[in-house]
Structures are given as structure tokens and as C-alpha cells.
């Protein structure tokens, strides 16, 4: 597969007069056509800076960004608009603009000053709106849409721009779970169906792990690139997200919190209720130790402590508080 984007010894950061703040140095990243990459990292490690630099919104401190083997900083601004499209976190709030109005702006780099859209342009706009499933809202005003729908409008605008590369900065922030999953699935499908390359910066680790073809894991030490599962198995996630408060649980790809555990109990019984019981116990500060003084027995519909039946987790915790 051909390379859409690569970087050569790229250093990113901010320079003010003589002061240079280097956020990340010597980045050598590659992105293939039709690939969806998630850029992951903790807040403040430089995700947005990298994305802005790749988008050409910000100058690189040193090194090069190459889009289709052309150096980004040498591409004219209106040519750049035909190579890469952006979906940003900037809130778009326009009085009396319809969904179609916004998506049509994606065709602007292709039309003359009067802004007339050809039939092909119009079809591109209709298709883009259809791809994000907003056909029924095409003539709705922007302020009548939900946050998830607005985000899809901006994605449709980027699609209408018809570029080989789309960059999205936190496209799922502020959205609820169903919308987050839907947008990630949509982007995944688009990358694979249309052959566009997609770069998404996100902190939704669990969704990124499932949807991304490749992950760029960013830490203060640099960027690790790989297939999500490889990065997990090689322990990169564990290293990247280390903290006193939580740890990356390689077993399920989620974060678990580190509770201070001082009290001991032992638990046995029904497997299906075990998971949730253990969660509640961990939160309340109980360490599960074989041979502890108190034993919790789990049956299919209740809990037993010292032969006393408890109907809810709440009752169980109250009981344990007295006993341990």
C-alpha cells in the first residue's frame, strides 16, 4: 500500500521569539492509504500539537511532514485543502445555516469565486450527507441538531472535501456512549470503503483499541506505533498509563482503579455474580485473601455471610462493615 503521510525527524512544539518549547522530538511516523490510526496519550503529552502540525495549522520546529511525498510546508494553502480535511474541536455555531450549507463548504476549494456547484459537486455533497446518515436532516438548521449530529455534519463536510487524508481532533468528546461508538464505527467503515486515511486523536482508550487499525501511543518519551493488540501485549499501554490511582488492565483492555485495600475477606460461589461482587468489595477497600476470617458465599440469587442471607450488595456491604 502507498504511503499517504509520513514524517521525517519531526519535532513539534511552540516557539516564541527565541524560546522553544519542544513537546515531541524526532518523530518518524507513517500512514498508509485506507488505514485508520488513533492517536492516544494522556492530556498534555502533545496529541493536539501533533495533529495541528500534521494539519499544517502550526509550524514544525524541525523535520518534515510529507503528504503523498510532497513537503507539507511547501504546498500552497488551497492545494492543501484538496489533500487533507479537518474535523476540529472548535464549536461551530452558525445562525440560520442548514446542514447542507455546511457540507457544501467542503466543496469550496473546488469551485470558482461565485461558488456555483457543478452537478458532480452537488452529488458529492448529497453522498457525504448520506454517508453520515443525515439525509432526513439535510435542510435542518444547525441549532436544531444534537451534539452527535453536529459532529457528523462536520465529518460530512470533511468527506465532501474529497481528500485522501482526514484528520480529526477528539471527534467523540462531549458525546454519549452510543454516539461515540457510532462515530468510530462510521470512520472505520469510511477508511476501509473509500480508501481514505484517517487520523483520530482521542482519549477514549477502549473504543480506540477496538476500532483502530493502528495506534500511535504518545508518551513524554515519544510515540509508539503498532497494531493495538501488539501494543497491549508488549506492555506499552501499561507503561504509558501508570499512576497511583489506576492501572491499565491488560486482561480486559480497561482501566482499573487502585483502591487502598486494608481489610480482608474471602469470596466463593456463583461465577456470574462474582465479577460485580468483587468490584463492590474492591471499592469498599476489601482485599480478597484465601483463609480470611470472613467468608462471603455467593448463591444464584443472594449472598451469605455466617449463614445469614443478604438480598442486595448494599446489605452485604453493611453486614461486612460490622463483621470485619
Amino acid at each position: 500500500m502507498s504511503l499517504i503521510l509520513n514524517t521525517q525527524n519531526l519535532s513539534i512544539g511552540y516557539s516564541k521569539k527565541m524560546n522553544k518549547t519542544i513537546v515531541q522530538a524526532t518523530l518518524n511516523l507513517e500512514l498508509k492509504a485506507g488505514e485508520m490510526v488513533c492517536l492516544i496519550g494522556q492530556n498534555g503529552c502533545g496529541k493536539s500539537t501533533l495533529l495541528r502540525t500534521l494539519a499544517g495549522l502550526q509550524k514544525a520546529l524541525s523535520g518534515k511532514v510529507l503528504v503523498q511525498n510532497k513537503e507539507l510546508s511547501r504546498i500552497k494553502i488551497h492545494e492543501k485543502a484538496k489533500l487533507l480535511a479537518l474535523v476540529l474541536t472548535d464549536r461551530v455555531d452558525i445562525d440560520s445555516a442548514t446542514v447542507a450549507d455546511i457540507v457544501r463548504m467542503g466543496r469550496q476549494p473546488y469551485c470558482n469565486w461565485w461558488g456555483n456547484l457543478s452537478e458532480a459537486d452537488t452529488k458529492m455533497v448529497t453522498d457525504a450527507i448520506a454517508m453520515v446518515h443525515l439525509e432526513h436532516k439535510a435542510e435542518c438548521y444547525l441549532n436544531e441538531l444534537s451534539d452527535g449530529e453536529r459532529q457528523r455534519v462536520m465529518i460530512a463536510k470533511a468527506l465532501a472535501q474529497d481528500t485522501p487524508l482526514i484528520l480529526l481532533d477528539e471527534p467523540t468528546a462531549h458525546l454519549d456512549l452510543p454516539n461515540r461508538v457510532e462515530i468510530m464505527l462510521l470512520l472505520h467503515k469510511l477508511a476501509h470503503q473509500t480508501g481514505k486515511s484517517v487520523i483520530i486523536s482521542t482519549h477514549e482508550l477502549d473504543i480506540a483499541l477496538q476500532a483502530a487499525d493502528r495506534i500511535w501511543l504518545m508518551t513524554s518519551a515519544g510515540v509508539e506505533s503498532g497494531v493495538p493488540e501488539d501494543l497491549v501485549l508488549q506492555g506499552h499501554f501499561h507503561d504509558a498509563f501508570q499512576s497511583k490511582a489506576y492501572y491499565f488492565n491488560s486482561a480486559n483492555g480497561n482501566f482499573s482503579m487502585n483502591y487502598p485495600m486494608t481489610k480482608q475477606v474471602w469470596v466463593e460461589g456463583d461465577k456470574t455474580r462474582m465479577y460485580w461482587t468483587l468490584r463492590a468489595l474492591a471499592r469498599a477497600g476489601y482485599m480478597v485473601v484465601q483463609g480470611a476470617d470472613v467468608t462471603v458465599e455467593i448463591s444464584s440469587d443472594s449472598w451469605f455471610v455466617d449463614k445469614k442471607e443478604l438480598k442486595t450488595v448494599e446489605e452485604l456491604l453493611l453486614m461486612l462493615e460490622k463483621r470485619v
Partner: protein
Amino acid sequence: MLFVTDLAWGSISISFAEIMAVFQGNGDAINQEVLLNFRLPKAITAVLTGAALSVAGLMMQTLFRNALAEPYILGVSAGASLGVALVTMASGFVPAFLINTGWATILAAIIGGAVVLLLVLGVSFRIQSAVSLLIVGIMFGTIAGAVVNVLQNFSDPDSIKLFVMWTFGSLSAVTWTYMQVLLPVILVGLLIAMLLHKRLDVLLLGENYARGLGISVIQTRFIIILATGLLAGGITAFTGPIAFVGVAIPHIARGLFKTSVHRVLIPATMLCGATLLLACDIISQLPTYTLPINTISSLFGAPIILWIILRKK
């Protein structure tokens, strides 16, 4: 229609038939004088003023993505009023041959407005965000306003009155001679605005999105400020500052035409602006004693701004 009404109404009322007669070249001599050399330029000025200030306001609202931005927000009119204040109140500094002509205040206003405009333009290259530019414009305006206050403190009541009369705004000061300057300036300003319509659309998405769509933001900002300077500065120089038209009309146009696409919005705004200012001019002549146009436009404009805020919750 309003244009004709505006011609007909005034301290001498002229019937529709008489207007037609004048235009066909066989009207009464007094009527002809009043119509051709007074009412007609005034009506054209009203149309130009309405269109220019409204479009300038629209461009500012789009550039700053702020519903309450207006053409004077960059300090152009404050600069112009400083120029006029210098001429009317500190006339010792100005060559005497200029003071006796009407051009003195106009030139002073143009120079004052242009100086502030150039300062803002110069700063616009050095500033990334539009919000900072907004603050810079307001600060320049504040400084100019403060200097005017200082001048007023040291002036005699007569020249203060002269200055205050100028700030009331007047459409009737524009004679055919002045029109030869005003008309081209405003037409060029409006033409530039029209040429920018695509870029203005994209600017509504925000500056980063605009860059992503291939627009050079700093260059576009420069042209917008320049066009606004021509429109607002030109009008202010010849008629004095006219309030509220610039901020209120773009909202009326958006409300009536239900669109944010500038290809439609710019002509719509011109139309609404010209119409409203003709109406204001007619109303200002209803009482036997003519009210300043600024008073009327404010009486109209303020309720409209209140309505915008209340509608936005």
C-alpha cells in the same frame, strides 16, 4: 417606493405628480431646486449609508463571529470623530483655508479614521486570534474617545456644539460635489464585500476550519478590515456616525432570508439597510422640526438588539 416617498416628504411637501414633472424636465423651479439638489442626494445618501453600514456590520459579525460586532468596533468612527474634534475644537492647528470649507470636517474625519484603520491593519498581521484584534480595535477607539474628551474640556461651548451636532449624524450634508467622492468609495467597498462572499462563509466555521478549506486567514482579515474601513469610514466622514444600523440590519436580513450564505446575505443586507435608512429618514422629517437621523436609527435599532438577545435566551 420608499425612495419616492422620501423625495416627496419634507418641510415642503411635493406631490408625486410634481416629482414626475421635475424628472421630465418641466417642473416648477423651486420644486426642481429642492428635489434635485437637496432631496435626491439625501435619498441616495440614505440608500448608500444603509447599505454600506449594514454590509460593514455583517462583515464584522462574521469576522469576529460575534452577533454584537458592528462597523465601528475597530475604532474607525472614534478615529474620525477625533479628527473632527481636532478641527472644530482645536482649530488653531489647522490651516485656515480648510476650515471655511465643508471639506475640513470631511478630510479630518477621513484622516482620523484612516490613521486608526492603518494601526489596526498593522496590528492584524501580528495577531493570531480575532478576539485580540477586537480588543485592540476597542482600545484604539477608547484612546481616541479619551482625547476627544480632553479637547472638549478645553473648548468653548460654540465649538463643542458644532462637534456634538456632527456626532448626531446628518444625511443632508452630502451635496452632489461630495457625492462624487462618496459614491465610488462606497461602491468599491461593497464590491470588495461581494468578492469576499465565499471566504466570509467559511470564516463562520472559525479560523482553523477556514485554513483547512484553503483560505489564508490573515490575508482575508486584512481585506475585510480594509473594506469595512472604506464603507464605515467613508460614510462617517460624510454623514457623521450613525448608530445601530450596522449591528441591527444584518440580523434582520438573516431573520428575513433565513440563510447564512453570504452570496444571498450581502445583497439582502444591502436591501434591508437601504430600506430601513430611507424609512428612518422619512420618519425624521415627520415632525415639523427635523430630528437627527442618529436619534431615529437608535430608537429603531435598540429594540431590535434587545429582541436578538431575548430570542437567544
